[in-house]
Protein backbone atom coordinates (compact mmCIF):
# COMPACT_ATOMS: atom_id res chain seq x y z
CA UNK A 1 0.00 0.00 0.00
CA UNK A 2 1.11 3.53 -0.67
CA UNK A 3 2.43 5.95 1.87
CA UNK A 4 0.62 8.97 3.22
CA UNK A 5 2.15 12.37 2.47
CA UNK A 6 1.35 14.98 5.08
CA UNK A 7 2.04 18.61 4.23
CA UNK A 8 1.72 21.18 6.99
CA UNK A 9 2.01 24.95 6.78
CA UNK A 10 4.34 24.87 3.79
CA UNK A 11 5.45 28.31 2.55
CA UNK A 12 7.79 28.96 -0.30
CA UNK A 13 9.31 32.20 -1.51
CA UNK A 14 12.03 33.11 -3.95
CA UNK A 15 13.40 36.30 -2.46
CA UNK A 16 10.51 38.67 -2.02
CA UNK A 17 8.39 36.66 -4.42
CA UNK A 18 5.97 34.53 -2.42
CA UNK A 19 5.07 31.45 -4.45
CA UNK A 20 2.50 30.09 -2.04
CA UNK A 21 2.04 30.23 1.73
CA UNK A 22 0.67 28.00 4.40
CA UNK A 23 -0.25 25.03 2.22
CA UNK A 24 -1.56 22.17 4.35
CA UNK A 25 -2.97 18.97 2.91
CA UNK A 26 -2.73 15.24 3.25
CA UNK A 27 -2.40 12.93 0.27
CA UNK A 28 -4.28 9.87 1.54
CA UNK A 29 -2.33 6.63 1.21
CA UNK A 30 -2.94 4.79 -2.04
CA UNK A 31 -5.31 7.38 -3.49
CA UNK A 32 -4.93 9.45 -6.63
CA UNK A 33 -4.93 13.22 -6.14
CA UNK A 34 -4.75 16.03 -8.65
CA UNK A 35 -3.35 19.50 -8.05
CA UNK A 36 -4.88 22.07 -10.35
CA UNK A 37 -3.94 25.67 -10.88
CA UNK A 38 -3.42 28.25 -13.57
CA UNK A 39 0.04 28.48 -15.13
CA UNK A 40 2.59 30.09 -12.89
CA UNK A 41 1.01 29.33 -9.55
CA UNK A 42 3.91 27.19 -8.44
CA UNK A 43 2.50 23.72 -9.01
CA UNK A 44 5.85 22.38 -10.17
CA UNK A 45 7.55 24.09 -7.26
CA UNK A 46 5.09 22.35 -4.94
CA UNK A 47 5.89 18.98 -6.48
CA UNK A 48 9.62 19.56 -6.14
CA UNK A 49 9.15 20.61 -2.52
CA UNK A 50 7.44 17.30 -1.77
CA UNK A 51 10.53 15.33 -2.81
CA UNK A 52 12.89 17.80 -1.14
CA UNK A 53 14.47 19.14 -4.33
CA UNK A 54 13.48 22.63 -3.27
CA UNK A 55 13.50 23.64 0.36
CA UNK A 56 10.53 25.80 1.39
CA UNK A 57 11.22 28.37 4.09
CA UNK A 58 8.52 27.18 6.47
CA UNK A 59 6.45 24.09 7.04
CA UNK A 60 6.94 20.34 6.92
CA UNK A 61 6.40 17.47 4.48
CA UNK A 62 6.18 14.19 6.34
CA UNK A 63 6.64 10.98 4.40
CA UNK A 64 6.95 7.78 6.39
CA UNK A 65 8.55 9.54 9.36
CA UNK A 66 10.94 11.64 7.29
CA UNK A 67 10.60 15.40 7.02
CA UNK A 68 11.60 16.07 3.42
CA UNK A 69 12.14 19.77 4.12
CA UNK A 70 14.39 19.78 7.15
CA UNK A 71 15.89 16.34 7.69
CA UNK A 72 19.48 15.48 6.93
CA UNK A 73 20.34 14.92 3.28
CA UNK A 74 21.19 11.30 3.95
CA UNK A 75 17.72 10.56 5.31
CA UNK A 76 16.05 12.52 2.53
CA UNK A 77 18.01 10.54 -0.08
CA UNK A 78 16.88 7.33 1.57
CA UNK A 79 13.23 8.49 1.64
CA UNK A 80 13.42 9.47 -2.02
CA UNK A 81 13.71 5.83 -3.00
CA UNK A 82 9.99 5.60 -2.23
CA UNK A 83 9.24 8.23 -4.86
CA UNK A 84 8.79 8.04 -8.58
CA UNK A 85 8.71 11.47 -10.17
CA UNK A 86 7.71 12.01 -13.77
CA UNK A 87 9.16 15.32 -14.90
CA UNK A 88 7.45 17.74 -17.23
CA UNK A 89 9.63 16.86 -20.20
CA UNK A 90 10.80 13.49 -19.01
CA UNK A 91 14.21 14.69 -17.74
CA UNK A 92 15.87 11.70 -19.38
CA UNK A 93 19.66 11.45 -19.45
CA UNK A 94 20.56 12.77 -22.87
CA UNK A 95 23.66 10.63 -23.25
CA UNK A 96 21.93 7.31 -22.55
CA UNK A 97 19.56 5.26 -24.66
CA UNK A 98 15.97 4.86 -23.51
CA UNK A 99 16.76 1.38 -22.26
CA UNK A 100 19.68 2.59 -20.14
CA UNK A 101 17.59 5.48 -18.89
CA UNK A 102 14.83 3.23 -17.66
CA UNK A 103 17.34 0.70 -16.30
CA UNK A 104 19.23 3.42 -14.41
CA UNK A 105 17.37 3.18 -11.06
CA UNK A 106 17.61 -0.62 -11.14
CA UNK A 107 21.34 -0.55 -11.80
CA UNK A 108 21.92 2.05 -9.09
CA UNK A 109 19.78 0.61 -6.34
CA UNK A 110 19.51 -3.12 -6.89
CA UNK A 111 21.91 -5.96 -7.49
CA UNK A 112 19.85 -7.57 -10.19
CA UNK A 113 21.50 -9.37 -13.05
CA UNK A 114 21.41 -7.83 -16.52
CA UNK A 115 18.87 -10.44 -17.60
CA UNK A 116 16.42 -9.53 -14.87
CA UNK A 117 16.92 -5.84 -15.53
CA UNK A 118 16.21 -6.44 -19.21
CA UNK A 119 12.97 -8.25 -18.38
CA UNK A 120 11.73 -5.53 -16.04
CA UNK A 121 12.68 -2.69 -18.36
CA UNK A 122 11.11 -4.31 -21.41
CA UNK A 123 7.93 -4.91 -19.46
CA UNK A 124 7.70 -1.28 -18.40
CA UNK A 125 8.45 -0.13 -21.94
CA UNK A 126 5.65 -2.31 -23.21
CA UNK A 127 3.43 -0.78 -20.56
CA UNK A 128 3.94 2.73 -21.90
CA UNK A 129 4.04 1.64 -25.54
CA UNK A 130 7.70 2.22 -26.28
CA UNK A 131 8.70 -1.22 -27.53
CA UNK A 132 11.15 -0.93 -30.40
CA UNK A 133 12.51 2.43 -29.26
CA UNK A 134 14.85 1.09 -26.58
CA UNK A 135 18.03 1.92 -28.49
CA UNK A 136 17.01 5.47 -29.33
CA UNK A 137 18.52 8.47 -27.61
CA UNK A 138 16.14 10.91 -25.91
CA UNK A 139 17.03 13.53 -28.53
CA UNK A 140 15.75 11.30 -31.32
CA UNK A 141 12.17 10.81 -30.13
CA UNK A 142 9.12 13.01 -29.77
CA UNK A 143 8.15 14.88 -26.63
CA UNK A 144 5.28 12.53 -25.97
CA UNK A 145 7.56 9.51 -26.14
CA UNK A 146 10.03 11.19 -23.78
CA UNK A 147 7.20 11.73 -21.33
CA UNK A 148 6.16 8.10 -21.48
CA UNK A 149 9.75 7.00 -21.06
CA UNK A 150 9.95 9.28 -18.03
CA UNK A 151 6.89 7.56 -16.61
CA UNK A 152 8.39 4.14 -17.27
CA UNK A 153 11.55 5.18 -15.43
CA UNK A 154 9.49 6.51 -12.52
CA UNK A 155 7.67 3.16 -12.29
CA UNK A 156 10.64 0.86 -12.55
CA UNK A 157 11.38 0.60 -8.83
CA UNK A 158 7.71 0.09 -7.92
CA UNK A 159 7.49 3.36 -6.00
CA UNK A 160 5.04 3.90 -3.17
CA UNK A 161 4.47 7.52 -4.14
CA UNK A 162 4.19 8.59 -7.77
CA UNK A 163 4.29 12.26 -8.67
CA UNK A 164 3.45 13.34 -12.21
CA UNK A 165 4.26 16.82 -13.43
CA UNK A 166 1.82 17.69 -16.22
CA UNK A 167 1.55 14.21 -17.74
CA UNK A 168 -0.67 15.58 -20.51
CA UNK A 169 1.42 18.43 -21.92
CA UNK A 170 2.72 17.49 -25.35
CA UNK A 171 0.37 14.53 -25.71
CA UNK A 172 -2.53 14.30 -28.14
CA UNK A 173 -6.06 13.83 -26.71
CA UNK A 174 -6.11 10.10 -27.36
CA UNK A 175 -2.73 9.54 -25.74
CA UNK A 176 -3.88 11.71 -22.83
CA UNK A 177 -6.95 9.52 -22.37
CA UNK A 178 -4.81 6.39 -22.57
CA UNK A 179 -2.36 7.86 -20.11
CA UNK A 180 -5.20 8.63 -17.71
CA UNK A 181 -6.27 5.02 -17.96
CA UNK A 182 -2.68 3.90 -17.48
CA UNK A 183 -2.31 5.97 -14.32
CA UNK A 184 -5.50 4.47 -12.87
CA UNK A 185 -4.31 0.97 -13.82
CA UNK A 186 -0.93 1.54 -12.22
CA UNK A 187 -2.69 2.69 -9.07
CA UNK A 188 -4.81 -0.46 -9.16
CA UNK A 189 -1.77 -2.69 -9.52
CA UNK A 190 0.64 -1.26 -7.00
CA UNK A 191 -1.70 0.82 -4.84
CA UNK A 192 0.71 3.74 -4.80
CA UNK A 193 -0.14 7.21 -3.54
CA UNK A 194 -0.28 9.45 -6.60
CA UNK A 195 -0.24 13.18 -7.12
CA UNK A 196 -0.78 14.57 -10.61
CA UNK A 197 -0.10 18.20 -11.31
CA UNK A 198 -2.00 19.39 -14.34
CA UNK A 199 -4.28 21.97 -15.81
CA UNK A 200 -6.01 19.48 -18.06
CA UNK A 201 -9.67 19.43 -17.06
CA UNK A 202 -10.29 16.00 -18.59
CA UNK A 203 -7.64 14.38 -16.44
CA UNK A 204 -8.81 16.35 -13.43
CA UNK A 205 -12.41 15.26 -13.79
CA UNK A 206 -11.89 11.58 -14.58
CA UNK A 207 -8.75 10.36 -12.84
CA UNK A 208 -8.44 11.53 -9.24
CA UNK A 209 -10.03 10.60 -5.95
CA UNK A 210 -9.11 13.97 -4.52
CA UNK A 211 -8.49 17.36 -6.02
CA UNK A 212 -6.84 20.54 -4.89
CA UNK A 213 -6.26 23.90 -6.46
CA UNK A 214 -3.44 26.38 -6.07
CA UNK A 215 -4.28 29.98 -6.86
CA UNK A 216 -3.11 33.39 -5.71
CA UNK A 217 -0.25 32.15 -3.56
CA UNK A 218 -2.33 29.73 -1.53
CA UNK A 219 -4.18 26.46 -1.63
CA UNK A 220 -7.77 27.39 -2.47
CA UNK A 221 -9.17 24.02 -1.56
CA UNK A 222 -8.31 20.34 -1.28
CA UNK A 223 -10.86 17.59 -0.89
CA UNK A 224 -12.79 14.74 -2.53
CA UNK A 225 -13.27 15.14 -6.26
CA UNK A 226 -17.02 15.64 -5.90
CA UNK A 227 -16.46 18.60 -3.61
CA UNK A 228 -14.43 20.44 -6.24
CA UNK A 229 -16.45 19.38 -9.25
CA UNK A 230 -19.60 20.77 -7.63
CA UNK A 231 -17.83 23.70 -6.04
CA UNK A 232 -19.37 27.12 -6.31
CA UNK A 233 -16.12 28.79 -5.42
CA UNK A 234 -15.70 31.26 -8.33
CA UNK A 235 -12.05 30.41 -8.97
CA UNK A 236 -12.60 26.66 -9.00
CA UNK A 237 -15.78 26.86 -11.06
CA UNK A 238 -14.18 29.17 -13.62
CA UNK A 239 -11.13 26.95 -13.94
CA UNK A 240 -13.06 23.71 -14.33
CA UNK A 241 -15.29 25.33 -16.92
CA UNK A 242 -12.36 26.80 -18.79
CA UNK A 243 -14.25 30.09 -18.88
CA UNK A 244 -12.67 33.48 -19.56
CA UNK A 245 -15.16 35.08 -17.18
CA UNK A 246 -14.26 35.07 -13.55
CA UNK A 247 -11.55 36.04 -11.15
CA UNK A 248 -8.72 34.38 -13.11
CA UNK A 249 -7.30 36.66 -15.79
CA UNK A 250 -4.39 36.55 -18.15
CA UNK A 251 -2.11 38.02 -15.52
CA UNK A 252 -2.87 35.69 -12.66
CA UNK A 253 -5.64 37.83 -11.17
CA UNK A 254 -7.89 40.46 -12.63
CA UNK A 255 -8.08 43.84 -11.02
CA UNK A 256 -11.32 44.47 -9.22
CA UNK A 257 -12.46 47.11 -11.72
CA UNK A 258 -12.47 44.62 -14.61
CA UNK A 259 -14.21 42.05 -12.46
CA UNK A 260 -16.88 44.52 -11.38
CA UNK A 261 -17.45 45.54 -14.98
CA UNK A 262 -17.87 41.90 -15.97
CA UNK A 263 -20.31 41.32 -13.14
CA UNK A 264 -22.28 44.37 -14.19
CA UNK A 265 -22.49 42.99 -17.73
CA UNK A 266 -24.07 39.89 -16.26
CA UNK A 267 -21.58 37.44 -17.69
CA UNK A 268 -19.53 37.19 -14.54
CA UNK A 269 -19.75 34.11 -12.42
CA UNK A 270 -22.80 32.58 -13.96
CA UNK A 271 -21.80 29.01 -14.81
CA UNK A 272 -23.98 26.14 -15.71
CA UNK A 273 -23.39 23.41 -13.14
CA UNK A 274 -20.96 20.90 -14.47
CA UNK A 275 -22.17 17.37 -14.70
CA UNK A 276 -19.97 15.07 -12.72
CA UNK A 277 -18.15 12.69 -15.03
CA UNK A 278 -17.73 9.24 -13.50
CA UNK A 279 -14.24 8.32 -12.41
CA UNK A 280 -12.23 5.99 -14.62
CA UNK A 281 -12.39 2.33 -13.74
CA UNK A 282 -9.41 -0.03 -14.00
CA UNK A 283 -9.09 -1.82 -17.33
CA UNK A 284 -11.09 -5.01 -17.71
CA UNK A 285 -9.30 -7.99 -16.21
CA UNK A 286 -7.86 -6.04 -13.31
CA UNK A 287 -9.16 -6.32 -9.75
CA UNK A 288 -11.03 -3.32 -8.32
CA UNK A 289 -8.88 -0.55 -6.87
CA UNK A 290 -8.13 -1.05 -3.22
CA UNK A 291 -8.18 2.70 -2.74
CA UNK A 292 -11.86 2.95 -3.63
CA UNK A 293 -12.94 1.12 -0.53
CA UNK A 294 -10.64 3.02 1.81
CA UNK A 295 -11.69 6.30 0.28
CA UNK A 296 -15.36 5.52 0.72
CA UNK A 297 -14.87 5.01 4.46
CA UNK A 298 -12.85 8.19 4.69
CA UNK A 299 -15.25 10.33 2.68
CA UNK A 300 -18.33 9.05 4.50
CA UNK A 301 -16.61 10.06 7.72
CA UNK A 302 -16.18 13.63 6.55
CA UNK A 303 -19.55 13.86 4.78
CA UNK A 304 -21.05 16.21 7.32
CA UNK A 305 -18.38 18.81 6.69
CA UNK A 306 -19.00 18.97 2.94
CA UNK A 307 -21.40 21.31 1.15
CA UNK A 308 -24.78 20.03 0.09
CA UNK A 309 -24.02 19.55 -3.60
CA UNK A 310 -20.89 17.56 -2.88
CA UNK A 311 -22.76 15.36 -0.42
CA UNK A 312 -25.39 14.58 -3.04
CA UNK A 313 -22.74 13.76 -5.61
CA UNK A 314 -20.88 11.47 -3.26
CA UNK A 315 -23.99 9.60 -2.20
CA UNK A 316 -24.88 9.15 -5.87
CA UNK A 317 -21.69 7.14 -6.41
CA UNK A 318 -22.29 4.90 -3.41
CA UNK A 319 -23.68 1.37 -3.76
CA UNK A 320 -27.40 1.30 -4.31
CA UNK A 321 -27.12 4.09 -6.83
CA UNK A 322 -26.16 3.55 -10.42
CA UNK A 323 -23.79 5.53 -12.55
CA UNK A 324 -25.48 8.01 -14.85
CA UNK A 325 -23.38 6.68 -17.72
CA UNK A 326 -21.35 3.49 -18.04
CA UNK A 327 -17.61 3.91 -17.54
CA UNK A 328 -15.85 4.74 -20.81
CA UNK A 329 -14.29 1.80 -22.55
CA UNK A 330 -10.60 1.82 -23.25
CA UNK A 331 -9.85 2.73 -26.88
CA UNK A 332 -8.60 0.10 -29.26
CA UNK A 333 -5.18 -0.79 -28.00
CA UNK A 334 -3.83 -2.56 -31.07
CA UNK A 335 -3.86 0.44 -33.34
CA UNK A 336 -2.34 2.81 -30.84
CA UNK A 337 0.55 0.71 -29.63
CA UNK A 338 -0.01 1.91 -26.10
CA UNK A 339 -1.68 -1.03 -24.57
CA UNK A 340 -3.57 -0.63 -21.32
CA UNK A 341 -1.84 -2.30 -18.46
CA UNK A 342 -2.00 -6.04 -18.67
CA UNK A 343 0.80 -7.21 -16.49
CA UNK A 344 1.59 -10.52 -15.01
CA UNK A 345 1.03 -9.77 -11.32
CA UNK A 346 3.98 -11.95 -10.33
CA UNK A 347 6.41 -9.49 -11.87
CA UNK A 348 4.91 -6.59 -9.97
CA UNK A 349 6.49 -7.60 -6.70
CA UNK A 350 5.98 -4.87 -4.11
CA UNK A 351 9.69 -4.06 -3.96
CA UNK A 352 12.50 -5.47 -6.08
CA UNK A 353 14.39 -8.01 -4.05
CA UNK A 354 18.03 -7.51 -3.22
CA UNK A 355 17.52 -3.79 -3.01
CA UNK A 356 20.51 -1.85 -1.81
Amino acid at each position, binding site marked *: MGVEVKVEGLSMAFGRQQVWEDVSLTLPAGEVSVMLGPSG*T*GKTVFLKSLVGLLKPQRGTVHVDGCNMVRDRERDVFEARKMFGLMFQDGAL*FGSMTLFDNIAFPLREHTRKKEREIRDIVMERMELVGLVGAEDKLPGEISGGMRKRAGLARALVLDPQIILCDEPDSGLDPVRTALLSQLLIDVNTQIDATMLIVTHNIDIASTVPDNMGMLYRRSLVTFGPREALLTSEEPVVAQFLNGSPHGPIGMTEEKDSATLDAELAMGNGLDFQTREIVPQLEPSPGLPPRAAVHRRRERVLGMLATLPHAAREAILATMPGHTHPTPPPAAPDAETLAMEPLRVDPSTWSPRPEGQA
Partner: protein
Amino acid sequence: MTTLIPPPPPGGPPGDPADDGETTTRKQTGERRPVPGLGWLRQTGALFSLSLSVLRMIFKRPFQFREFIEQFWFIASVTILPAALVSIPFGAVIALQVGSLTEQFGAQSFTGGASVLAVIQQASPLIVALLISGAGGSAICADLGSRKIREELDAMEVMGVSPVQRLVVPRVLAVMGVAVLLNGLVSVVGTLGGYFFNVIMQGGTPGAYLSSFSALAQLPDLYISEIKALIFGFIAGIVAAYRGLNPRGGPKGVGDAVNQSVVITFLLLFLVNVILTGIYLELVPAKGS
Protein backbone atom coordinates in the same frame (compact mmCIF):
# COMPACT_ATOMS: atom_id res chain seq x y z
CA MET B 1 27.16 17.83 7.95
CA THR B 2 27.76 20.00 4.97
CA THR B 3 25.12 20.34 2.35
CA LEU B 4 25.34 17.79 -0.39
CA ILE B 5 24.40 20.14 -3.19
CA PRO B 6 25.03 23.86 -3.19
CA PRO B 7 21.86 25.92 -2.72
CA PRO B 8 19.77 26.59 -5.81
CA PRO B 9 21.11 29.28 -8.12
CA PRO B 10 20.06 32.87 -7.62
CA GLY B 11 18.09 32.62 -10.84
CA GLY B 12 15.20 30.89 -9.12
CA PRO B 13 14.00 27.32 -9.51
CA PRO B 14 15.32 25.23 -12.36
CA GLY B 15 11.76 24.57 -13.48
CA ASP B 16 10.28 25.43 -16.82
CA PRO B 17 10.45 29.20 -17.04
CA ALA B 18 7.36 29.32 -19.22
CA ASP B 19 5.24 27.60 -16.62
CA ASP B 20 6.72 29.08 -13.49
CA GLY B 21 7.51 32.44 -15.00
CA GLU B 22 6.15 34.20 -11.99
CA THR B 23 8.49 32.42 -9.63
CA THR B 24 11.71 32.93 -11.53
CA THR B 25 12.66 36.24 -10.06
CA ARG B 26 15.92 37.19 -8.49
CA LYS B 27 16.55 35.48 -5.25
CA GLN B 28 17.70 37.44 -2.28
CA THR B 29 17.23 34.64 0.21
CA GLY B 30 14.96 36.47 2.54
CA GLU B 31 17.20 39.40 3.48
CA ARG B 32 15.44 42.71 3.44
CA ARG B 33 18.61 44.73 3.02
CA PRO B 34 21.34 42.63 1.42
CA VAL B 35 24.72 43.35 2.96
CA PRO B 36 27.24 44.23 0.22
CA GLY B 37 29.70 41.41 -0.35
CA LEU B 38 27.43 38.83 1.20
CA GLY B 39 26.79 37.20 -2.17
CA TRP B 40 30.52 36.76 -2.64
CA LEU B 41 30.89 35.15 0.76
CA ARG B 42 27.97 32.87 0.10
CA GLN B 43 29.42 31.72 -3.23
CA THR B 44 32.80 31.09 -1.66
CA GLY B 45 31.17 29.13 1.14
CA ALA B 46 29.17 27.04 -1.32
CA LEU B 47 32.35 26.35 -3.31
CA PHE B 48 34.15 25.14 -0.19
CA SER B 49 31.16 23.10 0.86
CA LEU B 50 31.18 21.39 -2.53
CA SER B 51 34.90 20.62 -2.28
CA LEU B 52 34.38 19.09 1.16
CA SER B 53 31.47 17.02 -0.17
CA VAL B 54 33.62 15.83 -3.05
CA LEU B 55 36.51 14.93 -0.76
CA ARG B 56 34.21 12.97 1.51
CA MET B 57 32.41 11.20 -1.30
CA ILE B 58 35.64 10.06 -2.93
CA PHE B 59 35.61 7.31 -0.34
CA LYS B 60 31.94 6.45 -0.74
CA ARG B 61 31.19 3.19 -2.52
CA PRO B 62 30.38 2.32 -5.22
CA PHE B 63 33.09 4.23 -7.02
CA GLN B 64 32.01 5.22 -10.52
CA PHE B 65 34.90 3.56 -12.26
CA ARG B 66 33.47 3.65 -15.75
CA GLU B 67 32.64 7.33 -15.55
CA PHE B 68 36.14 7.98 -14.21
CA ILE B 69 37.83 6.17 -17.08
CA GLU B 70 35.66 7.87 -19.68
CA GLN B 71 36.33 11.32 -18.27
CA PHE B 72 40.03 10.61 -17.83
CA TRP B 73 40.32 9.57 -21.43
CA PHE B 74 38.31 12.52 -22.64
CA ILE B 75 40.30 15.12 -20.71
CA ALA B 76 43.60 13.52 -21.63
CA SER B 77 42.67 13.39 -25.30
CA VAL B 78 41.79 17.07 -25.49
CA THR B 79 44.82 18.29 -23.55
CA ILE B 80 47.85 16.17 -24.49
CA LEU B 81 48.58 17.66 -27.89
CA PRO B 82 47.98 21.33 -27.02
CA ALA B 83 50.05 20.91 -23.85
CA ALA B 84 52.99 19.48 -25.76
CA LEU B 85 52.74 22.15 -28.44
CA VAL B 86 52.53 24.98 -25.90
CA SER B 87 55.37 23.70 -23.76
CA ILE B 88 58.00 23.69 -26.55
CA PRO B 89 57.87 27.45 -27.23
CA PHE B 90 57.34 28.13 -23.54
CA GLY B 91 60.53 26.27 -22.60
CA ALA B 92 62.27 28.03 -25.45
CA VAL B 93 61.16 31.49 -24.33
CA ILE B 94 62.38 30.91 -20.80
CA ALA B 95 65.67 29.51 -22.05
CA LEU B 96 66.19 32.46 -24.37
CA GLN B 97 65.28 35.02 -21.72
CA VAL B 98 67.37 33.45 -18.99
CA GLY B 99 70.18 32.84 -21.45
CA SER B 100 70.38 36.46 -22.59
CA LEU B 101 70.15 37.72 -19.00
CA THR B 102 72.89 35.46 -17.66
CA GLU B 103 75.06 36.33 -20.60
CA GLN B 104 74.99 40.00 -19.53
CA PHE B 105 76.71 39.27 -16.26
CA GLY B 106 78.73 36.35 -17.44
CA ALA B 107 76.94 33.51 -15.75
CA GLN B 108 76.08 31.52 -18.87
CA SER B 109 77.06 28.34 -17.14
CA PHE B 110 74.01 28.58 -14.90
CA THR B 111 71.52 29.02 -17.73
CA GLY B 112 70.61 25.35 -17.76
CA GLY B 113 69.79 25.05 -14.09
CA ALA B 114 67.85 28.30 -13.96
CA SER B 115 65.72 27.67 -17.00
CA VAL B 116 64.98 24.05 -16.13
CA LEU B 117 63.93 25.01 -12.60
CA ALA B 118 61.70 27.75 -13.94
CA VAL B 119 60.09 25.34 -16.36
CA ILE B 120 59.56 22.52 -13.88
CA GLN B 121 58.51 24.53 -10.86
CA GLN B 122 56.47 27.32 -12.41
CA ALA B 123 55.75 27.02 -16.08
CA SER B 124 54.79 23.37 -16.26
CA PRO B 125 52.10 23.27 -13.53
CA LEU B 126 50.61 26.51 -14.78
CA ILE B 127 50.52 25.42 -18.43
CA VAL B 128 48.90 22.18 -17.34
CA ALA B 129 46.34 23.96 -15.19
CA LEU B 130 45.45 26.50 -17.85
CA LEU B 131 44.96 23.80 -20.47
CA ILE B 132 43.07 21.50 -18.14
CA SER B 133 40.78 24.28 -17.09
CA GLY B 134 40.37 25.69 -20.59
CA ALA B 135 39.81 22.40 -22.38
CA GLY B 136 38.64 19.94 -19.72
CA GLY B 137 37.05 22.23 -17.15
CA SER B 138 34.97 24.14 -19.65
CA ALA B 139 33.65 20.87 -21.08
CA ILE B 140 32.80 19.60 -17.60
CA CYS B 141 31.08 22.85 -16.74
CA ALA B 142 29.03 22.90 -19.94
CA ASP B 143 28.12 19.23 -19.54
CA LEU B 144 26.93 19.57 -15.95
CA GLY B 145 25.26 22.90 -16.67
CA SER B 146 23.16 21.59 -19.52
CA ARG B 147 22.24 18.53 -17.47
CA LYS B 148 21.14 20.85 -14.71
CA ILE B 149 18.88 23.01 -16.85
CA ARG B 150 17.39 19.92 -18.51
CA GLU B 151 16.50 18.71 -14.98
CA GLU B 152 18.61 15.59 -15.41
CA LEU B 153 20.40 16.25 -12.14
CA ASP B 154 17.08 16.77 -10.35
CA ALA B 155 15.84 13.51 -11.79
CA MET B 156 18.98 11.80 -10.52
CA GLU B 157 18.47 13.21 -7.04
CA VAL B 158 14.85 12.11 -7.01
CA MET B 159 16.03 8.61 -7.82
CA GLY B 160 18.16 8.79 -4.70
CA VAL B 161 21.47 9.11 -6.56
CA SER B 162 23.76 11.96 -5.58
CA PRO B 163 25.00 13.85 -8.65
CA VAL B 164 28.09 14.84 -6.67
CA GLN B 165 29.01 11.23 -6.05
CA ARG B 166 27.90 9.96 -9.45
CA LEU B 167 29.20 12.72 -11.73
CA VAL B 168 31.37 15.27 -9.93
CA VAL B 169 33.71 12.95 -8.01
CA PRO B 170 34.88 10.95 -11.06
CA ARG B 171 35.36 14.16 -13.03
CA VAL B 172 37.40 15.89 -10.35
CA LEU B 173 39.54 12.79 -9.86
CA ALA B 174 40.04 12.47 -13.60
CA VAL B 175 41.12 16.11 -13.87
CA MET B 176 43.59 15.65 -11.00
CA GLY B 177 45.00 12.48 -12.50
CA VAL B 178 45.41 13.96 -15.95
CA ALA B 179 46.99 17.09 -14.44
CA VAL B 180 49.67 15.07 -12.63
CA LEU B 181 50.51 12.94 -15.65
CA LEU B 182 50.38 15.85 -18.06
CA ASN B 183 52.68 17.79 -15.78
CA GLY B 184 55.33 15.12 -16.32
CA LEU B 185 54.91 15.38 -20.07
CA VAL B 186 55.08 19.16 -20.10
CA SER B 187 58.16 19.17 -17.85
CA VAL B 188 60.02 16.83 -20.17
CA VAL B 189 58.97 18.54 -23.38
CA GLY B 190 59.61 22.00 -21.93
CA THR B 191 63.05 21.03 -20.69
CA LEU B 192 63.95 19.50 -24.03
CA GLY B 193 62.73 22.64 -25.79
CA GLY B 194 64.82 24.81 -23.50
CA TYR B 195 67.85 22.62 -24.02
CA PHE B 196 67.44 22.70 -27.77
CA PHE B 197 67.18 26.48 -27.94
CA ASN B 198 69.98 27.11 -25.48
CA VAL B 199 72.44 24.71 -27.00
CA ILE B 200 71.60 25.01 -30.69
CA MET B 201 70.39 28.58 -31.03
CA GLN B 202 72.39 30.41 -28.36
CA GLY B 203 75.55 28.44 -28.70
CA GLY B 204 75.58 27.14 -25.13
CA THR B 205 77.51 24.01 -24.33
CA PRO B 206 75.66 20.81 -23.49
CA GLY B 207 78.04 20.01 -20.65
CA ALA B 208 77.57 23.36 -18.91
CA TYR B 209 73.81 23.13 -19.33
CA LEU B 210 73.62 19.70 -17.73
CA SER B 211 76.16 20.31 -14.97
CA SER B 212 74.48 23.53 -13.84
CA PHE B 213 71.21 21.65 -13.85
CA SER B 214 72.52 18.93 -11.56
CA ALA B 215 74.21 21.55 -9.39
CA LEU B 216 71.02 23.55 -8.75
CA ALA B 217 68.09 21.17 -9.15
CA GLN B 218 67.02 18.61 -6.58
CA LEU B 219 64.29 16.03 -6.28
CA PRO B 220 61.90 18.19 -4.17
CA ASP B 221 61.66 20.53 -7.16
CA LEU B 222 59.94 17.74 -9.02
CA TYR B 223 57.75 16.91 -6.03
CA ILE B 224 56.46 20.45 -5.67
CA SER B 225 55.79 20.54 -9.37
CA GLU B 226 53.60 17.47 -9.16
CA ILE B 227 51.93 18.63 -5.95
CA LYS B 228 51.11 21.91 -7.63
CA ALA B 229 49.66 20.11 -10.63
CA LEU B 230 47.54 17.95 -8.34
CA ILE B 231 46.16 20.93 -6.42
CA PHE B 232 45.61 22.98 -9.57
CA GLY B 233 43.76 20.08 -11.12
CA PHE B 234 41.55 19.83 -8.04
CA ILE B 235 40.78 23.54 -8.17
CA ALA B 236 40.01 23.43 -11.89
CA GLY B 237 37.70 20.45 -11.44
CA ILE B 238 35.87 21.82 -8.41
CA VAL B 239 35.32 25.29 -9.88
CA ALA B 240 34.07 23.84 -13.16
CA ALA B 241 31.71 21.49 -11.33
CA TYR B 242 30.49 24.22 -9.00
CA ARG B 243 29.66 26.64 -11.79
CA GLY B 244 28.15 23.82 -13.82
CA LEU B 245 25.86 22.75 -10.97
CA ASN B 246 24.65 26.32 -10.46
CA PRO B 247 23.95 27.93 -13.82
CA ARG B 248 21.74 30.99 -13.84
CA GLY B 249 18.73 29.62 -15.70
CA GLY B 250 18.61 28.79 -19.37
CA PRO B 251 21.17 27.97 -22.07
CA LYS B 252 22.65 31.48 -21.86
CA GLY B 253 23.29 30.86 -18.17
CA VAL B 254 25.30 27.75 -19.03
CA GLY B 255 27.45 29.75 -21.43
CA ASP B 256 28.07 32.37 -18.76
CA ALA B 257 28.86 29.67 -16.23
CA VAL B 258 31.52 28.14 -18.51
CA ASN B 259 33.06 31.53 -19.05
CA GLN B 260 33.09 32.29 -15.32
CA SER B 261 34.45 28.89 -14.40
CA VAL B 262 37.54 29.43 -16.58
CA VAL B 263 38.10 32.97 -15.30
CA ILE B 264 37.62 32.01 -11.65
CA THR B 265 39.95 29.04 -12.04
CA PHE B 266 42.69 31.25 -13.55
CA LEU B 267 42.39 33.77 -10.72
CA LEU B 268 42.54 31.06 -8.07
CA LEU B 269 45.43 29.28 -9.79
CA PHE B 270 47.78 32.22 -9.77
CA LEU B 271 46.89 33.09 -6.19
CA VAL B 272 47.42 29.55 -4.98
CA ASN B 273 50.62 29.33 -7.00
CA VAL B 274 52.08 32.30 -5.11
CA ILE B 275 51.18 30.71 -1.79
CA LEU B 276 52.56 27.28 -2.70
CA THR B 277 55.77 28.74 -4.09
CA GLY B 278 56.23 30.83 -0.96
CA ILE B 279 55.71 27.84 1.30
CA TYR B 280 58.07 25.70 -0.78
CA LEU B 281 60.88 28.25 -0.80
CA GLU B 282 60.46 28.67 2.95
CA LEU B 283 60.38 24.97 3.76
CA VAL B 284 62.84 23.38 1.35
CA PRO B 285 66.41 24.65 1.57
CA ALA B 286 68.12 25.43 -1.74
CA LYS B 287 70.57 22.78 -2.86
CA GLY B 288 74.02 23.09 -1.41
CA SER B 289 73.06 25.64 1.24
